[in-house]
């Protein structure tokens, strides 16, 4: 009976020789992938606002630009991949009936290689439920604490002890964003609506902090700062709506401005930076790359780019301007390498390289369609 010879039990079927010859294509075992240690990763953080309960982080191979996995972001969650840790963190909110019922806010911890969830613990129900920006979740330089932006809408910073799984709170009314000190594990700064920065120095246990405000360095009405900040050595770089690059030292007890300079003042066409992550700094090369649009005006600060401007941070001047696809977010790993941008109109990730031989003008490389409404993108070393 032809039928009967298939009536075999369970997986043993797979061990049988094939009925007819097919040496190349035999029975296949189905396994589950893991990610290798040496993968150059690109994280595309997609809140998927059309289905706001179901955000996700796509993990791409930065070389081939293909999707290698996914981590769930859930309902307006935020995502952080520390530089050294083998863990990936999501802070999110669950309802036991999808959109209603019992609410749980939690840190979900994933193994960076298997992408399995390896831990989960609750945090207070205060976290901001944002369109994702990098500074809304970060980690201390020793990666022992997460700093998470709260907004109820009163703002504060949650300090999550990853060892003890406890959360402390730093009051930060009128301020937004978290910028961990690069050298001091117990220090984090924020940007405030009066045009200042403020720095918090935590006590030894990380349960509280003392706050020192800095001097006013910008005007929210006239020329607000984007909250996206870029590490550059032991400083942070920021950029304003009108294209002024600010260099901040957030390493001491009190935040200090190092310098600032304009990149578009006096340039014809009213060029301004725009987007959610409007610039990236290649610290090794001493270059910033800025997503610029023309005819900039009040309200244009999230416009996609028309050009990418290459800025020599030491010489404080624009070295090249290159036509670009419409991008709203740009990133580069701390170790340098290619940049990656989000084209929100195509819903794609675009690879971009700078040419040191041509004044660091950029070249747009490959792209891959992935995600829907992503605003944040990160690249691993």
């Amino acid at each position: 009976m032809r039928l009967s010879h298939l009536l075999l039990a369970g997986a043993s079927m797979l061990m049988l020789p094939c009925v007819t010859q097919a040496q190349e294509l035999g029975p296949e075992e189905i396994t589950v992938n893991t990610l290798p240690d040496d993968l150059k990763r690109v994280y595309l953080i997609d809140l998927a606002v059309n289905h706001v309960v179901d955000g996700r982080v796509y993990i791409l191979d930065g070389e081939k630009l293909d999707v290698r996995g996914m981590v769930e972001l859930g309902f307006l969650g935020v995502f952080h991949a520390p530089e050294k840790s083998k863990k990936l963190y999501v802070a999110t909110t669950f309802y036991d009936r999808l959109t209603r019922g019992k609410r749980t806010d939690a840190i979900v911890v994933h193994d960076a290689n298997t992408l399995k969830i390896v831990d989960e613990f609750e945090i207070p129900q205060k976290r901001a439920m944002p369109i994702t920006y990098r500074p809304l979740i970060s980690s201390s330089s020793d990666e022992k604490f997460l700093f998470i932006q709260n907004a109820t809408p009163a703002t504060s910073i949650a300090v999550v002890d990853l060892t003890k799984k406890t959360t402390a709170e730093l009051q930060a009314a009128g301020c937004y964003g978290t910028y961990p000190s690069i050298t001091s594990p117990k220090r984090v700064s924020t940007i405030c609506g009066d045009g200042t920065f403020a720095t918090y120095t935590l006590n030894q246990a990380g349960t509280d902090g003392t706050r020192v405000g800095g001097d006013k360095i910008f005007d929210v009405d006239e020329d607000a700062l984007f909250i996206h900040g870029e590490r550059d050595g032991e400083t942070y770089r920021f950029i304003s709506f009108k294209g002024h690059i600010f260099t901040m030292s957030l390493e001491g007890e009190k935040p200090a401005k190092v310098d600032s300079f304009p990149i578009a003042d006096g340039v014809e066409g009213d060029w301004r930076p725009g987007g959610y992550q409007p610039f990236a700094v290649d610290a090794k090369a001493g270059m910033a790359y800025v997503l610029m649009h023309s005819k900039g005006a009040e309200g244009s600060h999230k416009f996609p780019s028309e050009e990418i401007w290459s800025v020599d941070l030491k010489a404080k001047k624009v070295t090249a301007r290159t036509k670009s696809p419409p991008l709203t977010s740009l990133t580069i790993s701390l170790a340098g390498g290619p940049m990656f941008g989000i084209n929100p109109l195509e819903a794609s990730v675009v690879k971009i390289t700078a040419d040191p031989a041509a004044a660091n003008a950029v070249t747009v490389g490959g792209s891959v369609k992935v995600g829907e409404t992503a605003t944040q993108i990160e690249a691993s070393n």
Partner: protein
Amino acid sequence: MKVRTFTRLTDMIDRRSETLSRVAAQAIGRRSFITRLGQAMVGGAVIPMLPFDRSGGRAMAAEDVTDAACEYWRYCAIDGYLCSCCGGSLSTCPPGTDVSKVTWVGTCQNPKDNKSYLITYNDCCGRTSCGRCLCNNNLRERPGYRMGVHNDINWCMANDSSTMYHCTVAAIVEVSDGG
């Protein structure tokens, strides 16, 4: 249901925010945007882009635009799904949802009377995102350090029964005196 408007004074960094956030219809950070209304164009030179609208950017348009279009004048600082496309309207939430307790605001110019109006963008809450007519305009929008005019956050955040985001209305609070 009454409109309750949460906004943030620019000088709110005096740490009163825990209290203030519970006060409905707070004062507006007028210095930040209303006062500029006389000078700055509302719906003029700015061509707002819709980051997630694949059709690209369009201008805030004049009278013949309906409230189901991103270009409708009241939407000058909106970020979200228009409730008018979801079973609601400019000032009604779709059936089965709840009005947000807190909001951000904008000041937009009505092309019919050339007056500026203070608009409250209440989110409608408690049901998954509508998914229709996603609009994003950012006139005088600012980052979260000026929360009352920040639109990149879920303003259902303070609702008790559910903080789920469904869509956004754009109701008039008052005529702005433009001063």
